[in-house]
């Protein structure tokens, strides 16, 4: 059974949070570490995972020049968390604007303030859904709930509108590691640090906002278990982009939850480039009429990277709509697996869902799997799914070669092109140049 070392620095949690964390820890005691024998883990490389190989995060290291990654575009606000500690926020004054709340410090979960929130009961629901453990939680969800350090609530007030994105940056740096970015030497290589980046975004009625979340770390062998919850109130439009560029020895088990109410729209876009083992579970619950979501994702795995993407589109109400497009490429000896489920509940009449997963396999030793699924309890719905796994079409490379382009440049062009259409619909297109370059450098 996992025995993560006792926390010592963060005993100041409010009672309600301590209670959730204790419950989560108790459930965790009874929850075995996943193994590849389990159906939903059989593609992941979990066999070497030893929770007791990890230690708690060390206190935030404030490195001035990492406050703003060089690729970050202009933002309306920047929230910075170092090693799950709160480092800095710039929220443009806050008058009628967004609020950034550390749930572990400035929040009364029993009785959220009516002066702070237009709809305190929804906030209460959200915080409970997000932090209260349940018997359905997976091992990693419980782990994150038991050890969460700085759960941040990003509150977007009703009808708030901003063109520029709000950026939330989780900068993870193990101080026992030294060396250059690509050649790190760990003082204690057996024990990597553990981080639980935690973000809840609440887009209140009629708000229109873009949020960019960045996960970046050095190359230390750390464990990163991020959980992000996107709650979209009536008529709100939340565009959320996550960029995962964790260091190359990192193990990453992430969750992205979406919950959309009447006429709300969640436009989610996730880019997964980093970590050695990376598993992301993405869900969107369309809970009320005419709620809709786009779940888009782009992933690239080279060397011995593993990407395990799991998605869940849950339609609970009439006239709901979801579109999912996941595109990935694997190179070197990398592996990827996509598993997706569309659920149409009884009563979700006239709802539409589509699910598309396409994979480019760029080398003989790389592999990709795609497993789409449908679970439909209502007749009056439209669902479609499509998946493809294959190498670059030789006719395309031949065509480019007749233009004088060498085979490796042709492969680069085709692979970047494969992602380009999708990237053009990203909420924060200003990051695309950085994303292209990162992929191009891996090819």
């Amino acid at each position, binding site marked *: 059974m996992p025995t993560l070392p006792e926390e010592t620095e963060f005993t100041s949690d409010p009672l309600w949070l301590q209670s959730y964390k204790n419950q989560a820890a108790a459930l965790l005691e009874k929850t075995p570490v996943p193994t590849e024998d389990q159906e939903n883990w059989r593609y992941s490389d979990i066999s070497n995972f030893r929770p007791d190989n990890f230690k708690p995060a060390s206190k935030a290291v404030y490195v001035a020049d990492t406050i703003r990654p060089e690729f970050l575009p202009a933002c309306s606000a920047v929230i910075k968390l170092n090693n799950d500690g709160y480092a800095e926020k710039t929220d443009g004054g806050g008058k009628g604007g967004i609020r950034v709340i550390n749930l572990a410090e400035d929040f009364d979960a029993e009785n959220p303030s009516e002066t702070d929130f237009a709809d305190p009961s929804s906030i209460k629901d959200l915080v409970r859904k997000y932090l209260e453990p349940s018997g359905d939680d997976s091992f990693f969800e419980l782990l994150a709930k038991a050890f969460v350090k700085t759960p941040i609530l990003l509150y977007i007030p009703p009808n708030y509108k901003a063109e520029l994105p709000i950026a939330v940056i989780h900068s993870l740096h193990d101080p026992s590691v030294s060396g250059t970015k690509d050649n790190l030497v760990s003082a204690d290589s057996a024990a990597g640090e553990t981080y639980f980046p935690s973000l809840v975004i609440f887009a209140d009625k009629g708000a229109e906002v873009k949020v960019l979340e960045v996960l970046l770390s050095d190359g230390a062998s750390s464990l990163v278990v991020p959980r992000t919850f996107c709650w979209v109130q009536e008529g709100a439009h939340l565009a959320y982009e996550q960029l995962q560029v964790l260091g190359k020895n990192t193990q990453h088990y992430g969750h992205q939850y979406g919950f959309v109410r009447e006429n709300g729209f969640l436009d989610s876009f996730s880019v997964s480039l980093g970590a050695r083992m990376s598993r992301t579970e993405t869900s969107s619950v369309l809970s009320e009429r005419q709620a809709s979501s786009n779940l888009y994702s782009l992933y690239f795995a080279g060397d011995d990277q593993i990407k395990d993407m799991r998605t869940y589109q849950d339609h609970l109400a009439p006239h709901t709509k979801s579109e999912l497009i996941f595109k990935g490429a694997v190179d070197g000896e990398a592996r990827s697996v996509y598993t997706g489920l569309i659920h149409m509940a009884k009563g979700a009449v006239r709802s539409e869902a589509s699910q598309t997963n396409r994979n480019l396999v760029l080398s003989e030793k790389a592999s990709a799997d795609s497993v789409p699924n449908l679970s439909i309890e209502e007749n009056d719905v439209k669902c479609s799914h499509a998946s493809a796994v294959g190498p670059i079409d030789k006719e395309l490379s031949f*065509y480019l070669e007749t233009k004088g*382009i060498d085979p490796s440049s042709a492969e680069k*062009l085709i692979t970047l092109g*494969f992602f380009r259409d999708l990237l053009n619909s990203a909420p924060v297109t200003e990051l695309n140049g950085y994303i292209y370059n990162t992929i191009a450098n891996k090819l």
Partner: protein
Amino acid sequence: MSELQIIDLGVETSGKQVLSGVNLRVKSGEVHVLMGPNGAGKTTFANALFGHYRYKVTSGQILIDGKDITDLSTFEKARAGLAFLMQEPPEIPGVTVENILLTALGATRPSGNRETYMSEKVSALAAKLDINSALLERGVNTDASGGEKKRLEALQLCCLPPKFAVLDELDSGLDVDALKKVSTAVKDLVDAKSPTGKAGAGMGVIVVTHYNRVLEYLPADKVHLLIDGKIVETGDASLVDQVEAKGYGPWLAGS
């Protein structure tokens, strides 16, 4: 003045000998026509010349200015000065014409302000060839009609003019106006003069076709009849008229 020589070319595909003993000699500024009925081996000829993976050259040589390029890979042949306009160029999602041209140009012209140079050139040619700018924003050939694809190919040809070009069924999918525009653009490259004003410096062309429509705008210097994988007769433009009048029958009987 350059010269493309094809000597005794033999090609097989799927284990079957499709071409044998094909000889051609094309000089700068010349237009050669390779005509023949369906299945004669025209598309095999074009693809084999560029080293398409489905075709295997079993004999003969391909030379540019005396340099043997037979065994070079496809992109090296292109860099040696050969261009190929495919009958049905593929669609490549997310790769624009400008991406292609810049990558291709980067290979031969590593310095200078390529982006500006290319984007000005592309805009000017798009106007000349009547290409909708939306087509240039998209992946090359994606959601494009047959005619639009041919215009995009012509645009690329004009941006990076080669020494020699093989045009496979240039006229397919083109209406009269488009055919005129595209063949005029090709003819301009054929008639191009050297920087010092000398004639005969233009692009040499092999037009592969089973149809004479394109020749109205692109007059042939030489016409070769390809029947059953062999060139059975070579003549001047009047050979086209004979085929027009009698069909391929007389040559088929003789082969």
